[in-house]
């Protein structure tokens, strides 16, 4: 149903609500606190919207007693590409929605600081616990895992994160909008470009600005380059955890080549400070274009042959097939996004549902796999990688002139809000921004893809043995940094 149908339908239901459409595809519904449960039930059961997130507008300032706070619940319609934001005012804690939406408890734990968190415990003969972390054995970020094991199979996995909580959302409120993209890029280093892009889209949405087609195409080139080195690292990581070191090292080598290409194009191996609102922060000329085409051409067939080599090895297939399965129903229940969800037969990709830049012309279909195991995630990452090669080729055909560095001063008006979303390497990233005084934001909220996908991993390991955990972990490859913020 389209956005107008939703409005008509909501009016027919005789609720005491105020609605407003902003930025073409955002429907803001203000409702009283006692009716929120009803409307959420209608959104989920009747309209079949996807639940995205829940957050308070005041953020961390909530702690003072008795003060009113506004809670926003965000839903999306992926078919017609719009968001529905149901907001209500409450004086105490947020209203419990966890019996309607399972994942709501994750977000409510963030809003409500004295949420009662219960750890699941397993008891009985042969039951024991294995604690891992926060300092891990490899070069990984910190996080604590607690496996409850009965004999061999894992019965429960408790993931304790937030070791890296730095308070980025709060810090964003003190930074001028002109240099806020630096902060955004450092939420997660692996997806720097995607975070830069989401900030650019957010500001462009608020200002209602349009950019030229060449810059749009160039942004796609950068986004897909980032996707490439991340997936190459992931594939290498999976091969490494199995012990197929030849393939692992080759993927690492290709990833290094892409990193160096990024360095030549933008001056930074992670292409930082390249995408800025209303423009682009680096020059692009024919030489660089030729460099990109030549480098990608030189490794394209090679990447294909290495992928083939890995999937033809029986010992490799033995480890990955039917390992770490997540069912489609569970993936839906846990609100998983990105490659991980698409491997479980969930057909959802932000690049298709909410097309940004030139993805409308370039990306036509969604890659999905059905079974939802490690091998499906591996295959899907290979396909996304192949797509990335094609998308860069296609996007480069849109660029026929040299692009000059163009960074404009931005000036934001007070009290405007917008929601922007981008498909990062990990999944769907949704950012809410509310502008304030002095060219700063009053509230920035990140719904990062890892935040919900981490719970998917504790589902995937159930019934597996602990030695398979690193493999499943690598096939998910979630970011601790963006989860903790």
């Amino acid at each position: 149903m389209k956005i107008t149908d939703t409005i008509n339908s909501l009016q027919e239901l005789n609720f005491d609500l105020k609605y407003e459409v902003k930025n073409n595809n955002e429907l803001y519904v203000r409702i009283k606190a006692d009716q929120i449960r009803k409307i959420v039930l209608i959104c989920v059961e009747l309209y079949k919207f996807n639940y995205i997130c829940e957050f308070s507008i005041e953020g961390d300032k909530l702690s003072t007693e008795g003060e009113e706070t506004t809670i926003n619940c965000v839903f999306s319609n992926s078919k017609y590409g719009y968001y529905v934001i149901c907001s209500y005012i409450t004086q105490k804690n947020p209203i419990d929605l966890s019996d309607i939406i399972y994942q709501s408890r994750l977000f409510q734990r963030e809003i409500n600081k004295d949420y009662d968190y219960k750890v699941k415990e397993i008891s009985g003969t042969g039951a024991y616990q294995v604690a891992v972390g926060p300092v891990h054995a490899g070069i990984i970020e910190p996080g604590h895992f607690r496996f409850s094991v009965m004999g061999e199979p894992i019965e429960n996995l408790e993931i304790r994160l937030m070791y890296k909580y730095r308070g980025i959302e709060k810090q964003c409120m003190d930074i001028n909008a002109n240099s806020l993209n630096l902060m955004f890029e450092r939420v997660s280093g692996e997806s720097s470009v995607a975070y830069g892009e989401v900030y650019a889209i957010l500001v462009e949405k608020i200002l209602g600005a349009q950019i030229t087609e060449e810059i749009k195409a160039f942004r796609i080139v950068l986004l897909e380059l980032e996707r490439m080195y991340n997936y190459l690292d992931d594939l290498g990581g999976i091969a490494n955890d199995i012990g197929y070191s030849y393939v692992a090292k080759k993927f690492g080598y290709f990833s290094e080549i892409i990193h160096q290409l990024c360095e030549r194009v933008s001056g930074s191996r992670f292409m930082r400070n390249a995408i800025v609102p209303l423009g682009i922060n680096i020059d692009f000329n024919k030489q660089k274009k030729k460099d990109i085409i030549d480098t990608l051409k030189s490794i394209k067939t090679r990447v294909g042959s290495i992928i083939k080599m890995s999937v033809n090895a029986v010992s490799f297939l033995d480890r990955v097939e039917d390992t770490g399965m997540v069912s489609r129903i569970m993936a839906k229940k846990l609100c998983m996004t990105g490659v991980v969800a698409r491997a479980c037969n969930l057909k959802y990709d932000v690049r298709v549902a909410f097309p940004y830049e030139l993805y409308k012309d370039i990306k036509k279909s969604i890659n999905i796999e059905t079974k939802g195991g490690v091998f499906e995630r591996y295959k899907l990452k290979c396909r996304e990688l192949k797509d990335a090669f094609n998308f860069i080729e296609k996007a480069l055909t849109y660029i026929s002139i040299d692009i000059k560095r163009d960074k404009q001063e931005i000036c934001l008006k007070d009290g405007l809000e917008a929601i922007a979303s981008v498909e990062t390497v990990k999944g769907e990233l949704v950012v809410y921004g509310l502008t304030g005084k002095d060219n700063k934001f009053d509230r920035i909220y990140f719904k990062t893809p890892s935040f919900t996908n981490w719970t998917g991993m504790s589902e995937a390991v159930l019934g597996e043995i602990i030695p398979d955990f690193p493999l499943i972990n690598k096939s998910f490859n979630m970011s601790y940094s963006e989860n903790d913020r």
Partner: protein
Amino acid sequence: MNNIFDRIKYGTETIKDPLKNNEFSYGKIVAREKACNNCRACINECAMDAIRINTNAFGEHIVSVDKKKCIYCRNCVNICPNSILKMTSDYKMAELELAGDKLREKVYSIFNRSLVLRVVDTGSCNACMSELSALQNTFYDISRFGINVAASPRHADGLVVTGAVTINMKEALEKTYHAIAEPKIVIAVGSCAYNGGIFKEGDGVYGVVKDILPVDLVIPGCPPSPQAIIFGLLKLMDKR
């Protein structure tokens, strides 16, 4: 079998000297002399507060950029109206922190031949972690210098810390440090580890590494490239 054919066909895919000059790398920001008119545009632009302008007795303004604080975003280079600031490709910026301390230098000589490290992330954006794992790919292949990453702090000679130290990670960092056998060294990788970087005013940030542990080596950059990290480690091992 396929591996062997592939190996024969493409040979060794590595480079002889990982420290070769890389003209595309970011590096030290230098200022042209006697040209600054003290407009302070760069100081206002800098998110890290890394730029200082000093005026000497002759009335000349001297711009200096603190390479350890800088996050190399190039905004100051781009905004300077007289294009005084210039970014070089000199990535060799790592510095020993306890320079002049003879006792420490003796300790470093123990690690001359090999160095086993333990990496702890205390609140970085994971770009530094990504670069540290890139050290092990066939391109840079850090084990050729005798440098390895250990799985346990008990087996390590030194601790590599990335990111500002968050309140939640402070205890884990201290425990890891105490688990390492003496003599031990601490290496801070990235501008966040040196002075908190962009996160230094964050809510959950406790402080920086040097407040908690004695830091021996600082490798600046955001994130430092694998070449810069190799240069820093070799400097410590007295091979460069």
